């Protein structure tokens, strides 16, 4: 069975709340938003992994462990 996506629309003037099926345009926008967020999250994680690799490479060059670095920076 196909799931019918619906939104909760609240009219604050009257207090009336109704569930309304999403339009095709709203469903497309929702999918585009999800893709954009997934891409942004992947980019952020890749950038963080690159920074972590850089930190570890520097610590290796200096001969320091992560705990020793914390002591130095504390």
């Amino acid at each position: 069975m196909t799931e019918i996506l619906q939104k909760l629309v609240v009219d604050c003037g009257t207090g009336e709340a109704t569930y309304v099926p999403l339009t095709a345009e709203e469903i497309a926008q929702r999918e585009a938003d999800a893709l954009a967020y997934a891409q942004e999250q992947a980019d952020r994680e890749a950038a963080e992994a690159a920074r972590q690799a850089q930190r570890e490479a520097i610590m290796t060059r200096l001969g320091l462990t992560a705990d020793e670095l914390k002591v130095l920076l504390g």
Partner: protein
Amino acid sequence: MTYGTLINTQTIAAGGAASIDFNSIPQTYTDILIVLSGRLSIGSGVFEVKLNSTSSTSNEKYLYGDGTTGSSGNNGVLYGLVDSSAYTANTFGNTQIYIPNYAGSNTKIVSVDGVTENNATTSLQKLTTATFGSSAVTSVNLVNSFAQYSTASLYGIK
């Protein structure tokens, strides 16, 4: 102390909702506040906050932490945070959305703070701000797959 005037409160029914739209917001308060106890029916706990059905276009910045590491950055649009379906059953995260001077013609600056609740190691906190255009805010849209019993309340602050 009176914290604010409750304008409307809604609890999501069985079947969930792909968004919660507060429309026709009265223009008679100084600020508005949305308090959300929420859970999403998908594996992500983030939802978008839109004003007048429009995404934020600039100056979005966040501070994010999981109790072990923290980070800050920019997502491009404004997100709130509640529990995802991966969290302990029947737990709900919390987000507050504060919109000062929402009825005027100044640039709208919105702050969002959210936390998750989980009977497990992972639990998150996120503090976010973003700017929108200068139009008076007549609607606020919380967009993602909200699960049953998620509750959103809109308050007017004088």
